[in-house]
């Protein structure tokens, strides 16, 4: 899997979390918890999902609560990366200026995140 697949996977999962919350009026935490509860135990899918929530959940919740979308969340968590000289890849429509502002805001929100601090760029 390439970096691009990681980004695509992240955007899809965060979108689902966001939409589950919207459809059922859940909090983002409940939404993530529900998503994991739907997964089967086989192949450690459920366990892996809960592990992912534990690691990235707090940051995802903080970002989604501030109305930032899946693209911004995944760029902030570094699942998506903009290579130098390359365009910024996003699924949801957004203006360039809004993007810049949203990413700056997001970075500030998760500035003290232990996960991002420890993982460095990866």
């Amino acid at each position, binding site marked *: 899997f*390439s*970096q*691009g*697949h990681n*980004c*695509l996977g992240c*955007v*899809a999962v965060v*979108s*689902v979390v966001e*939409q*589950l919350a*919207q*459809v*059922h009026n859940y909090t983002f935490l409940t939404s993530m918890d*529900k*998503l994991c*509860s*739907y*997964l*089967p135990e*086989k*192949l*450690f*899918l459920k366990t892996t999902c809960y592990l992912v929530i534990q690691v990235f959940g707090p940051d995802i919740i903080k970002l989604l609560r501030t109305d930032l979308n899946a693209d911004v969340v995944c760029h902030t968590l570094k699942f*998506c990366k903009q290579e130098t000289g390359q*365009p910024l*890849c*996003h*699924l*949801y*429509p957004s203006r360039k200026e809004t993007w810049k502002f949203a990413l700056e805001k997001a970075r500030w929100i998760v500035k003290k995140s232990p996960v991002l601090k420890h993982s460095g760029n990866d």
Partner: protein
Amino acid sequence: FNICSLPVLAKLCQKIKFAINNAVPFKDIDSDKYSVFPTLRGYHWRGRDCNDSNKMVYPGRRPDNWDVHQDSNCNGIWGIDPSDGIPYEKKFCEGSEPRGIIVLGDSASAHFHISPQWITASQMSVKSFHDLPTALTDELNWPQLSGITGFLSPTSRIKEESIYLRLRARNRCNHRDYQNIAKNGASSQNLETFIESLSRNQLLDHPAIVIYAMVGNDVCSRKKDPVPYMTTPEKFYSKVMQTLKYLNAHLPNGSHVILYGLPDGNFLWDHLHDRYHPLGQLNKDVTYAQFYSFLNCLQVSPCHGWMSSNKTLRTLTSERAEQLSNTLKKIATREKFTNFDLFFVDFDFQEISQEWQKRGGQPWQLIEPVDGFHPNEVASLLLADQLWKKVLLQWPQVLGKENPLNQQIEQVFGDQGGH
């Protein structure tokens, strides 16, 4: 973190990797390439082994001593009729010209499918993820529901059956004789890396119908500029000939090879670009045009050439696909092989789309909703129907004759032990 780096899992991971890379079953005790396990290239991909501790027992072989003592070809027919002492295999199958079906293909032949329920919040439940582990261990493919080798009843409401089920219905002696040698990303250029997973013994096995269906990856790539990565007609000719020579050296005499053309993928953009992708349906904010552009930006698109807003690029891709189809046509008319005869059949999406519209459907309903690229289950079965009808009309000898004893086989052996 890589789970396979754990010492306890390293060996298992290596075995799984080997099975996937080489398209051979993960669980195959007798190493005959047939398995009693469904996924990881098991019986979802080729007929279920009926004895995994004897490598001389597998689907598709000619019966050993008319299967008096055991079902050596796993077609569910064996033993002796007590009323006259004649072995059942001899009584029911002798002279019926049994044959197997083999597909050499890509993700379309393997039936790549990501369930929309997995990403649609409003439809999500425990039930919607029930089949995720199966799908993951089949590389997100569903060969058991594919148009060529599928053996399960379709999940969509469609009456058409796979080529394998039709061949089996035509002659119950063909039971379990199917092989799906298809891989995601396969093309004429990389088939040589896994063609050896094909199992056919020239001396011991029945002839086979081989469908060569590399329908996209020779013109499709994820690259920013996909044109230089497209297979040229010259390279294509050389690789297809190489494959045919391999088949000639491995297929039993009397086999048939059908070369399947490439489609004109323009229909993808035409029918989908302004529709909403499953991720964009709730808030009406993601169309397929945006989804394609996102995949292209990330360089993960399965086919940048056709899944693009750039009309010139789409036309170029279609032109190259047409050139490659013409190359296949040329090979089918000019080349001769000793162990099989060779045919060419068009991939005519237009025709199945019209058929679907006659039934009240819409063309976009024939495309996989999540990836916006692959033919879905309905399209795969309509394509199989189209292929079957064309072959039956033009070259009926390929399909063999109908076995008049099918009903008796069913009476004696029921479902013949399942697929």
